[in-house]
């Protein structure tokens, strides 16, 4: 499915995006520095697909989303939405584009105004963009509530009368009001009860089928990302390190950081947990104000240690390169992807993830 969607037209094109925030004076240099939250990333989102962005806090995934929504301006680089460059767009055009992309936020307790009725909340985008008469808007709201699985009488009530899952439905109804092309969902279920999450994920998936939506989903939960995305971009310290079709990424990761992430993910299986060998990354993520030279991951990279600290890792930033020659699709930014492929660390990680009865005998059997 991902291959087909990959061929569909590009909806969002992000080219060499940089978003730097001014920071205080550096202790060593005394000069004004920058937090390089996003530091040169390029990717596209195709119509009808779900692209996931994963990575740890501070990797720049949320900043990227905010730049696409034009909630902040890029320091450098370009974002095109359906071919239109957002940095040179006129105010009028921007209004039209804003209708076509809508955010869904993590916390439905803070993203809904408690003093407004659900009807007013859901109708708000229609009012802002002057869509329809009052009566038409009312009708549209009840249609939207029905679409997201809320009863009609929800319209007259206030957010506090609803549980977390229902509030997220309200937020989704609001996002759907203007019939957008793109929904940007930042951790859409992580604030919800575990038993409610599947309902919301299924709703998002149904809406995508029904309305041909394109999704950009930001999440840290790797199991969730596997379930809902067609392609995944892995970010580390402001850079994309790997971008692959979802199944390829989980079955054959090519960046050492991706392998480490998969290796850290908890598995709800006592046997797998008892026998797995985790890759433990040394130390913390370095500061984005002063990122490491060369490959940004080199200071914590398990593979570099294994290879005897090759100079190139600290000297040269690896480009995001296609991986076709490995019979795979996507891109990876590592000087030694073949060493990742051959590593027993990757093999161990994949065996633990697929369970003791691995589906593919070539990937290993019971540990």
């Amino acid at each position, binding site marked *: 499915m991902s291959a087909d969607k990959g061929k569909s037209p590009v909806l969002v094109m992000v080219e060499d995006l940089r978003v730097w925030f001014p920071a205080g004076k550096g202790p060593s240099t005394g000069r004004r520095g920058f937090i390089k939250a996003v530091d040169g990333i390029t990717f596209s989102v195709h119509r009808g697909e779900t692209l996931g962005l994963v990575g*740890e*806090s501070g990797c720049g995934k949320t900043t990227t989303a905010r730049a696409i929504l034009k909630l902040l301006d890029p320091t450098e680089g370009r974002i095109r939405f359906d071919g239109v460059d957002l940095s040179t767009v006129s105010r009028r055009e921007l209004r039209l584009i804003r209708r076509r992309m809508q955010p869904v936020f993590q916390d439905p307790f803070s993203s809904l105004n408690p003093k407004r009725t659900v009807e007013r909340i859901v109708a708000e985008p229609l009012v802002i963009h002057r869509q329809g008469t009052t009566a038409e808007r009312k009708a549209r709201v009840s249609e939207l509530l029905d679409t997201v699985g809320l009863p009609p009488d929800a319209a007259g009530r206030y957010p506090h009368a609803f*549980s977390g*899952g*229902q509030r997220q439905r309200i937020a989704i109804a609001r996002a759907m009001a203007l019939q957008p092309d793109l929904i940007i969902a930042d951790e859409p279920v992580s604030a919800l*009860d*575990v*038993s*409610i*999450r*599947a*309902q919301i*994920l*299924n709703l998002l*998936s149904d809406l995508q089928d029904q309305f041909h939506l394109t999704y950009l989903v930001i999440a*840290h*939960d*790797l*199991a*969730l990302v*596997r*379930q*809902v995305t067609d392609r995944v971009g892995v970010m580390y310290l402001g850079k994309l390190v790997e971008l692959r079709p*979802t*199944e390829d990424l*989980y079955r054959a990761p090519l960046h050492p950081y991706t392998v*480490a*992430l*998969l*290796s*850290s*993910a*908890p*598995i*709800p*299986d*006592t*046997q*797998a*947990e*008892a026998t*797995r060998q*985790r890759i*433990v*990354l040394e*130390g*913390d*993520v370095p500061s984005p104000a002063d990122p490491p030279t060369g490959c940004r991951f080199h200071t914590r990279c398990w593979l570099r240690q294994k290879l005897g600290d090759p100079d190139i890792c600290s000297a040269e930033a690896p480009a995001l390169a296609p991986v076709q020659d490995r019979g795979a699709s996507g891109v990876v930014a590592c000087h030694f992807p073949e060493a990742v492929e051959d590593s027993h660390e990757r093999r161990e990680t994949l065996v633990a*993830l*697929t*369970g*003791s*009865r*691995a*589906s593919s005998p070539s990937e290993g059997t019971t540990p």
Partner: protein
Amino acid sequence: MKSPVAEPGTIVADAAEADGPLLSVRDLSVTFRAESLVRAVRTVSYDLAVGEQVGLVGESGSGKSAGALALARLLPEYADVSGTVTLDGTNLMRLTERELREVRGDQIGIVYQDPFSSLNPVLTIGKQLAEVLRKHKRLGARAARRQAAQLLGSVGVPNADDRLSDYPHQFSGGMRQRAVIAMAVAPRPALLIADEPTTALDVTVQAQILELLDELTSQHRTTMLLITHDLGVVAGVTQRVMVMYAGRIVESSTTADVFTRASHPYTVALHRSLPRIDLRQERLVTIEGQPPDPTRPAEGCPFAPRCPSRIDRCATEDPPLMTIPTARRATAGGWNMTSIQDADGVQVPGPASPHLTACWNPPAPVGGLSERGSTP
């Protein structure tokens, strides 16, 4: 993970060795006096043996945190707590506030979700560690400072000597949680309560912190009660799991059993509704409806409105924790409460208790992940 997970045999032996459980909770109830009464925990009983690592799993509002904080009587004024909590022979419910302060820290260590809230932002990490050591180990200022560095190093903070003079905000999230853990384990408490200790942390850091907790508690035979909403977290570090729903323990067994032979419909549904990291499912199985409103406790089993195995009896009678054979016989409806208790004795989850479920109609055992890898 260093310690193998499923070793119920050894645990039972350990428990038998000691005179009794380290911690004994009986009929613990917590009610919050808010606008309406919130019945957060409803007559919960369990035992913890010395050196056990036990998971308490539930979603928000299940009562898992309120129940655990009630152990150390850390709940606010407007919480009514009843029942008994016996730690090493002492009923904590009868202690004065001053006696309690000794117990907290000395005998019960607590690690919260947010390490920031456990640290004083205007004191250096070193000062805060030294303070704990001086109070609980009665060390002098200089000895405390020396031990503080050692302690910080022992929880994996690099350059511990230099970092003692840092303030909490200069530590990363993972390092702060390490410092908090150092403070909690410094007095060598018999019981460590870890309330969502990794929820605020990134996934690579989460793995490190879980390993640290596992290491420290195994090393000192500290009993750990690990509270979490994440089934994946308990799989690696606990030997036993108690699942809570709507203020009750609804299932209790070895961790391995809860994963491979879950018997309460809620646990089963939870397993099935989780996205899986090992494969993409056609569609997620949902648990319909919402968790019950704790201000309006319903008659019967609290999970009944959402339960696919619901039978008539579920609407009127709240099932107690039973062994599975007893639960199956009770399905026929011919058994009343008294005969169930006669058949099972009084069932309290503990180190040696059998697999217990609070269900009148437990489905055939299903592990959400017992089929792992068998589907392409």
